[in-house]
């Protein structure tokens, strides 16, 4: 029995497909339209509005708030100025990722952290004895992602008094929308120009209505998880429980991932000490990790040929496939592709996954498993740089 989000009355009225999924105990639309492709196009070419309320949100206040976050996060949180947002994973003592999210500095001693999994107990336990309060604000804070090239125009229309042109990537500002105080961060999970809005749950619908009404002139559409799953893969953004397993849930060693395993080595500063897992990460940084995060481009023409031989048009994941498939190098399995989709923008069949080092250098040729009419085939693919798609407007 999933719970409705604070936007449920609005989203359920719009959800023609009646396709829903449970996300962290909440009901989330997979698509609103009968198919997801117009929602995808809206995000990349106009704007999409995504209800991301099910994210876990924590507020950390107190004299030791910065010290606690520096203890938990791999990145140096002191670099994050008031009004700034920083992305970081956090690890266990073995240096394996528990979760990742954004940390917004609201005031000097006040932060807001987003997470994919519940982390209240972990944050509180890490802060034992510190002058700090960790509060779970997940239920009191509704959240919307307004993403796409026209998102800024929509915000300018509904909140003209704020200087949206001055709001830089990974910065936040406080504004009012429809009279409701809203924090807006220039962040997102789409790899595009976009914003995330943090709204008091009780007034969520007011903000939704304002955005939808203003968005009509900008081609805005509500977008579901299916479209989000494609754009995040184009941006090569990892998804917990799909592309990696939280160290708090992993059943065996193979399921555990360090930041280096996931291509997040850049989030581990070489000079930072005394955060959870730092010794193991220091050692891993010196001696190398066992896995490598990779982006793959499947050779579309070769793939097409595999299907044509069975007299079929290429049947590839229209949505993002989350069924892991083997990646082969020189005939042996070297890893797995965990998320795979056809990118309508790039016209390429793309995937992200993990391979065992030393495999997986950019440019190397591999094969991925493709099923054609119940038969397992291998399609040639190339390891490429990620993200697959990163428009200039994302940061501009």
């Amino acid at each position: 029995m999933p719970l409705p989000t604070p936007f449920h009355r609005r989203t359920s009225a719009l959800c023609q497909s009646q396709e829903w999924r449970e996300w962290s105990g909440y009901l989330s639309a997979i698509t609103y339209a009968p198919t997801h492709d117009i929602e995808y196009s809206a995000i990349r070419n106009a704007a999409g509005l995504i209800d991301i309320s099910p994210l876990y949100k924590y507020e950390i206040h107190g004299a030791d708030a910065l010290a606690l976050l520096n203890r938990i996060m791999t990145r140096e949180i002191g670099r994050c100025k008031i009004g700034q947002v920083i992305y970081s994973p956090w690890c266990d003592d073995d240096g394996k990722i528990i979760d990742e999210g954004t940390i917004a500095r609201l005031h000097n001693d006040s932060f807001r952290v987003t997470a994919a999994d519940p982390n209240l107990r972990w944050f509180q336990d890490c802060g034992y004895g510190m002058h700090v309060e960790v509060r779970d604000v997940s239920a009191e804070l509704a959240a919307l992602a307004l993403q796409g090239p026209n998102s800024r125009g929509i915000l300018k229309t509904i909140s003209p008094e704020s200087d949206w042109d001055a709001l830089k990537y990974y910065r936040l500002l406080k504004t009012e929308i429809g009279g409701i105080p809203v924090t807006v961060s220039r962040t997102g999970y789409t790899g595009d120009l976009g914003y995330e809005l943090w709204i008091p749950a009780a007034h969520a619908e007011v903000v939704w209505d304002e955005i939808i009404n203003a968005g009509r002139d900008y081609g805005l559409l509500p977008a579901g998880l299916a479209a989000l799953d494609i754009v995040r893969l184009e941006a090569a953004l990892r998804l917990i429980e799909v592309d990696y397993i939280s160290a708090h849930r992993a059943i065996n060693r193979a399921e555990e991932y360090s930041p280096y395993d996931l291509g997040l080595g850049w989030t581990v500063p070489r000079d930072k000490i005394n955060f959870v897992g730092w010794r193991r990460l220091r050692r891993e940084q010196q001696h190398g990790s066992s896995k490598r995060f990779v982006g793959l481009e499947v050779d579309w023409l070769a793939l097409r040929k595999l299907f044509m031989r069975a007299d079929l048009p290429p049947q590839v994941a229209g949505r993002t496939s989350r069924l892991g498939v083997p990646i082969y190098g020189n005939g042996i399995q070297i890893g797995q592709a965990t998320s795979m989709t056809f990118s309508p923008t790039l016209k390429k069949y793309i995937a992200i996954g993990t391979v065992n080092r030393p495999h997986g250098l950019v440019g190397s040729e591999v094969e991925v498993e493709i099923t054609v009419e119940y038969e397992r085939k291998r399609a040639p693919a190339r390891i490429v740089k990620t993200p697959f798609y990163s428009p200039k407007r994302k940061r501009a």
Partner: protein
Amino acid sequence: MAKKYDAIIIGAGHNGLINAAYLARAGKKVLVLERRHLVGGATVTEEIFPGFKFSVFSYVVSLLRPQIIQELQLPRFGLTILPLESTLTPLPNGDYLYRDSDHYRSLRDIARHSARDAEAYEEYNREMYFMAKAAQPIIDNPAPDPASLKPGELFRLARLGKNMLNMGPERLYTLAKLLTMSAADFVEQWFEAEPLIATLSASGIIGTNMGPRSPGTAYVLLHHYMGDIDGAFRAWGFPKGGTGAVAEAIARSARAFGAEIRCEAAVERVIIRNGRARGVVLNSGEEITCNVVVSSLDPKQTFLKLVDPALMPEELVQDIRRFNIRGSSAKVNLALDALPEFSCMPGKGNHLRGAISISPSLDYMERAYDDAKYGNIPRRPYIDIIIPSMIDPDMAPPGKHVMSCFVQWAPYELNQGTWDERREELGDNVIDTLEEYIPNIKSIILGRQVLSPWDIEQMTGLSEGNIFQGELTLSQLLFLRPAPGYARYRTPIHNYYQCGSGTHPGGGIMGASGRFAAMAILRSR
């Protein structure tokens, strides 16, 4: 003229029947002798009131080994296990703690009591998955003897040691804690909400004459977590037709393999000539000869009653005398005119299809134990309730219900009076306790059956009414169960074996000891 059998099994409890089925499956001519008019021992379904079927003693299954289900083809012989959907802990203040298969809803309900506990719950479940996984090689193999230098034993020990090392250091430390801590202390490492702590630690005191704060009870908790139903670890289920249907399915399987089962045939003693078991004498005076005698009864009866203790080493006799078999559980079975209406959760919902645990707090549990510890009938006992007719409607007439109340603790010996005189007092205390959560309970009771530990002993023969044939404390497990040197189903008497849950790996409807004993017998012949 008496037929000559390869083996006679004394007692048609589930372990006796499983033992017989495996021996028969190996081509042996097997006879099972049961004192009562029906098979099952403590695994029986009986129609105590017309139309109302009670799983009189044991009431749920989880531990029954998958090897036994497969090898004895139990589904073919009628075994059906229905899921138990939920766990409800009603609280005296009208609140409740409710968990079921709706993962997020369960977490939200735990979060109402403690947000931290909701997160800890997943970590706890994961940790207990590892513990159950670590324990499986222990319950799926005979217990190696660390004092033995025989190559076979050393190999077994080494294999077990390898399993342990493969767990990784952190899990090994948790296992060490689990083997030594109290259930309450163990559970409190994760949780702070009283109803959750009390309900989880209750698994550590089932059938055990110890409170949740007594060291050693964490192991009993693990013992209840080791099972898996259809591959789902830790799942508990209800057998269609009551637990008696489990025994009947095994009996059918045993008969299909050629075993013979005689009910109302109580064994008086085992015939021993020249240090070898030769057969049995029934209390009717009838003698039946055979090559092997297997006792599925508890160690006290196996070593001290069925045979002359003088035939055995004195140290073993003393060990068995000291073997801790204190009965501590009682059962109240109710025939109901309608469904019980819980004040905390009215209506007919999934909460009535699972376990309902009267365990509001640790102090409540300890107080119940305190009463029993000093020989008193607990005023407010811990009660584990299921309503079998909600899971299997055939257990009661349409619209009527049966309710099974497992009660912990009830002393075997009362400090005043006898159970025969005071049995109904326990029944009254249970009903009074229930009434605090189910206001309509008294008005819907059509009949009740109260079984004190003494009654359980009288009916099933289990010494002191101990449901596990001996407590599951570390001092009585593995190579120490039931006594050092006799954990591998043999006795000092040639061709006289033991197969009950008083042997490794212990109680619950698990069947492992019946199976291992059969394997030991077959290997030696």
